[in-house]
């Protein structure tokens, strides 16, 4: 195996996981949340604060000719305004991760000179109350000169298309070819080649229930900026904001509170935070902003929209799929905020769940006059994984293979792990065949096939679908160098401090930014196990706090990594503290360290439990009784133990685009039975099963809850949620009235099962999880296609509302092109 891999023997993992890890310990967070005492950002208040309202571009693409704020500023109670013209002077353009020419983009916190998507902020107005700010906004006169729009993520690269960023010279933000194995050889020598014209992954958002918000104060006295906000990756935000406004990160304080969901959509809010900071400085007041739902859906972040063209799949006569080649176009919207990282992140799962060896992806990241994208739940992997799963189903159908057997044949097998993929990633562990069996059992696959046959002629069509995906977790940020070799990022890390307070209280602080994943609870569980106490004796600080907690550059909560990085950091810190407590205890008891054990908040002799010192005694010796502390201990013991967990990564290779890009690979195999009304195309889910694998589960109930939530997001996107722009770039559904978020009537009861394949690469055998929302997209497409009549067009889009299904049903009789061709030799 690769030299840089660190193995944790199962024995060592087991030793670390004690009584509480693996238990569904009730959540510490719940009491305050159940009583309505959660502190969300809109609940916060600062003396003298003003409220912000953003005036936004009604046009998708327009030159800003003039801005007149005089009438607004004349209103009593209006404190200040901020225009794009001012921003262009007050701010350096944000650092770009893309190499040139994409990296030449000039991105500011508001529209400077030109607006590039409908809803882009153009002017900010600060007033005594939110209502007044809103009213004053109507007195601001902006004159626009509308420009031509470009809205198709593929056609946008054609010459003659309006260009969003003149500095770049085109709407191509990044381009690269990923080439592994020898797909030309495979296509030449395969028994069959299946050609799929086009697949499309649509634009939607996880849309957390709480929108973005912030309370920002640029203190005129100290020059420090305080950001109280629900941004879920604060240090990433700091790294962008700091250089843009010329403030050192040491002069920026970030804190989060309870966050009402994030799902990746609250990562790129650094642009709004910058605007709020500039406005605060100008007005000499704290500024408070609560995004409306319309603003959130139109102008926070969307998930990546990706089009796959000219897919060619070489298949052998026994069903072995050799690989595929594809041209992928990722529509990033108007600005690159977290992009173009998506252009490489998909390659964490190049072959999906399968043993495909020959893959070529010609990947273009493009720009259009739409809301910029952000790393929405499943970021960039779910697009690629969905395409692969479509390939598998289409190959099965076209070549007459059973979709279950074809998967089992091509899956990475349990005996293959650790499995190296074509680009050097290592799948740590898994067992897809067993998971598939379980999923099929949960939906009573045989019974469903019977129902399917019995439904013939009743006006209802039954379909059975399977979706296989992966949730790659704990990124190696060095993969950014595959996109741009000059980027200074590599590896990953999270930091934690576990300490004893003055009276021996065990306290944990972490660099993470939880939005409902239960970090306060699970961090307490693992700490309790290491220190030999119960979780309710461990206090974990809630939320992110740059001043009070510890952090590294990657601190935050995103990308399915907390169970590994966050808990890895906590465990490392707890073990350090354990060591120090034992050291002090041994000294105080006159014993050898090997004679000492920790239990119930006491340090005691293993051989005689009566001889014990409570943690308060240890703390007192170190903090208050210092004259009695032996010299060597006084120098080396702090009882304040910081640990940075760093997964064992090296820098991937820019030239070959290979490397170990992620540490862990959780997996999801879903199955569903659906019923389609032939006359209307309406889809009803009769049965849905989700089988999950994420290594050792620290808190099984929390894991299952994440699976339910991700599944609901996927079902919602598959059947109900899709952003629709008209031909002028107007987003037509920017409220929950028209963007239908799935309700309790739309999400079925989810049958759940899981298996545990501990990761050998992590300190606790756990894997990051929570982004498995791609599986329903595949599963429902699979089920719909299974229900369609012979000769129908393939299911080509992730979104299948009733009208699309209606068209698919009728495509069989229409006898037009089916979107797929087979060449058999």
């Amino acid at each position: 195996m690769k030299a840089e891999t660190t193995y944790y023997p199962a024995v060592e993992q087991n030793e670390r996981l004690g009584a509480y890890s693996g238990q569904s310990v009730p959540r510490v967070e719940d009491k305050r949340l159940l009583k309505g005492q959660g502190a969300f950002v809109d609940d916060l208040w600062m003396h003298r604060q003003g409220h912000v309202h953003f005036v936004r571009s009604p046009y998708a693409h327009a030159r800003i000719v003039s801005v007149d704020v005089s009438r607004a500023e004349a209103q009593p109670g209006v404190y200040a305004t901020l225009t794009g013209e001012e921003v262009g002077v007050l701010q350096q353009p944000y650092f770009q991760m893309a190499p040139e020419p994409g990296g030449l983009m000039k991105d500011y916190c508001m529209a400077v000179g030109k607006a590039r998507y409908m809803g882009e902020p153009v002017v900010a107005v600060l007033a005594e109350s939110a209502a007044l700010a809103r009213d004053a906004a109507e007195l601001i006169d902006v004159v626009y000169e509308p420009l031509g729009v470009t809205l198709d993520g593929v056609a946008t690269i054609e010459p003659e298309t309006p260009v969003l960023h003149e500095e770049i010279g085109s709407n191509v933000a990044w381009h690269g070819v990923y080439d592994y194995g020898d797909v030309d050889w495979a296509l030449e020598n395969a028994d069959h080649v299946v050609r799929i014209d086009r697949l499309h992954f649509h634009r939607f958002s996880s849309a957390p229930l709480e929108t973005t918000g912030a309370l920002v104060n640029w203190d005129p006295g100290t020059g420090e900026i305080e950001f109280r906000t629900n941004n879920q990756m604060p240090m990433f935000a700091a790294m962008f904001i700091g250089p843009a406004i010329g403030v050192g990160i040491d002069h920026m304080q970030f804190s989060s509170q309870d966050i009402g969901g994030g799902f990746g959509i609250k990562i790129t809010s650094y642009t709004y935070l910058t605007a709020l900071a500039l406005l605060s400085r100008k007005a000499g007041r704290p500024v408070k902003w609560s995004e409306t739902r319309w603003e959130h859906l139109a102008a926070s972040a969307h998930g990546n929209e990706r089009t796959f063209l000219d897919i060619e799949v070489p298949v052998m006569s026994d069903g072995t799929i050799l690989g595929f080649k594809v041209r992928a176009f990722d529509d990033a919207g108007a600005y690159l905020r977290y992009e173009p990282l998506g252009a490489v992140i998909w390659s964490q799962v190049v072959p999906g769940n399968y043993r495909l060896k020959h893959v070529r992806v010609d990947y273009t990241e493009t720009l259009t006059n739409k809301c910029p994208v952000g790393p929405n739940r499943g970021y960039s992997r779910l697009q690629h994984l969905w395409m692969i799963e479509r390939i598998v189903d289409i190959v099965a159908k076209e070549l007459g293979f059973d979709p279950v057997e074809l998967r089992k044949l091509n899956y990475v097998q349990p005996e293959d792990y650790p499995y190296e993929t074509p680009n050097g990633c290592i799948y740590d562990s898994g067992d897809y065949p067993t998971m598939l069996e379980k999923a099929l059992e949960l939906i009573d696959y045989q019974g469903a096939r019977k129902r399917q046959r019995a439904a013939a002629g009743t006006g209802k069509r039954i379909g059975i679908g399977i979706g296989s995906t992966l949730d790659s977790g704990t990124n190696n940020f060095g993969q950014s160098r595959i996109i741009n070799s000059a980027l200074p990022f590599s590896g990953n890390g999270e930091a934690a401090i576990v300490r004893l307070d003055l009276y021996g209280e065990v306290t944990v602080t972490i660099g993470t930014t939880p939005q409902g994943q239960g970090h306060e609870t699970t961090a307490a569980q693992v700490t309790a196990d290491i220190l030999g106490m119960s979780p309710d004796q461990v206090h974990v600080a809630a939320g992110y706090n740059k001043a009070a907690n510890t952090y590294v550059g990657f601190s935050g909560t995103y990308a399915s990594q907390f169970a590994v990085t966050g808990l890895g950091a906590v465990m490392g810190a707890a073990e350090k503290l354990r060591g120090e407590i034992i050291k002090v205890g041994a000294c105080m008891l006159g014993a050898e360290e090997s004679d000492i054990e920790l239990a119930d908040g006491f340090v005691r002799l293993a051989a005689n439990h009566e001889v014990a010192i409570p943690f308060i005694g240890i703390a007192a010796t170190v903090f208050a009784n210092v004259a009695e502390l032996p010299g060597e201990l006084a120098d080396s013991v702090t009882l304040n133990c910081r640990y940075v967990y760093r997964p064992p990564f090296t820098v991937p290779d820019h030239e070959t685009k290979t490397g170990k890009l992620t540490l862990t690979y959780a997996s999801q195999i879903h199955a569903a039975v659906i019923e389609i009304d032939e006359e209307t195309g309406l889809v009803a889910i009769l049965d849905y099963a989700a089988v999950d694998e994420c290594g050792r589960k620290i808190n099984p109930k929390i894991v299952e809850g994440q699976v339910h939530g991700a599944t609901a997001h996927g079902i919602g996107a598959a059947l109900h949620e899709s952003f629709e722009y008209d031909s002028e770039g107007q987003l037509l559904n920017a409220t929950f009235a028209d963007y239908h978020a799935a309700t309790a009537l739309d999400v079925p009861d989810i049958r759940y099962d899981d298996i545990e394949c501990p990761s050998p690469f992590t300190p606790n055998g756990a894997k990051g999880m929570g982004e498995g929302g791609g599986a329903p997209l595949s599963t429902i497409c699979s089920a719909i296609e299974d229900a369609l009549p012979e000769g129908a067009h393939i299911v080509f889009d992730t979104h299948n509302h009733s009208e699309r299904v209606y068209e698919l049903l009728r495509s069989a009789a229409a006898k037009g092109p089916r979107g797929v061709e087979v060449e058999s030799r």
Partner: protein
Amino acid sequence: MLLAPTEYVRPGSLEEAIDELGARPGARVLAGGQSLINVLKHRAASVELLVDVSRLAELRSIDVAADGSARIGAATTYRELEHSAPLRASHAIIGRVAAGTVDRQVRARGTIGGNACFADPASNYPPLLVALGAELEIAGRGGTRSVAAEDFFLGLWRTAVGPGEVLVAIKLPPLGGAGVGYRSLQIAADSWALARAAAWVGPGDPIDAARVVLGCVAGTPVRASAVESKLIGGPRSAQAAAEAGALAVEGLDPPSDVHASGGYRRAMAAVMAARAVGDALGLAEEVASNGR
């Protein structure tokens, strides 16, 4: 989300309400607010004065007469309609439609009068009221007048209720053994409708009377008169219902929007019409949800 400045008054009687509405051109009736508050939040219309009629006893009542006719106060909530035993006996369809309206929070405050007066093409009561032959009672300074449902809906978000007037009651003639069907094709359960069809068919065999009305296809409910003519004198058969559907949408050109293309709307209107007529003929099973 934040409303423009406005004024509010809650009159103690219908007479006072009419006075308030007549005193200012920018005055509007506020009942449950489940549609109007959204309009105000999005600043899609400006209202100078909101006249709150939601608590007027005169407007909140359900009276079912011995002959099976019903008079429903305009400010009666969906919830009250859903739970009214007399109304279930005389016109069960009204309560059934109420029970499937949006969600229970909306049903607690939203009113049938508000629904009728909002007159959105996707609103659920307008096509049904036309199919049932309802009469809508409007009161103003000049007194009270009755308008047939068919003449009440004038255009997109426009009804026969003029400035200074308020809808007071909805009167339903007795069903007298007629069958009623109502089907909606929605983007999700109990959600936004893409197609609606209401059918009312007299008890005779062959069919002696019929009204078939489509919603969601134009600015107002559309009576499919050609269908009605074809049904009358014909058999009470599934075939007749199926043909009614196709005929109902002939010549219709519904608009396209974010939810559906005009073509799909049209096709779905036909399916809903066929199913609604089938229900009215007593041929179909109980509707589970969403047009099924």
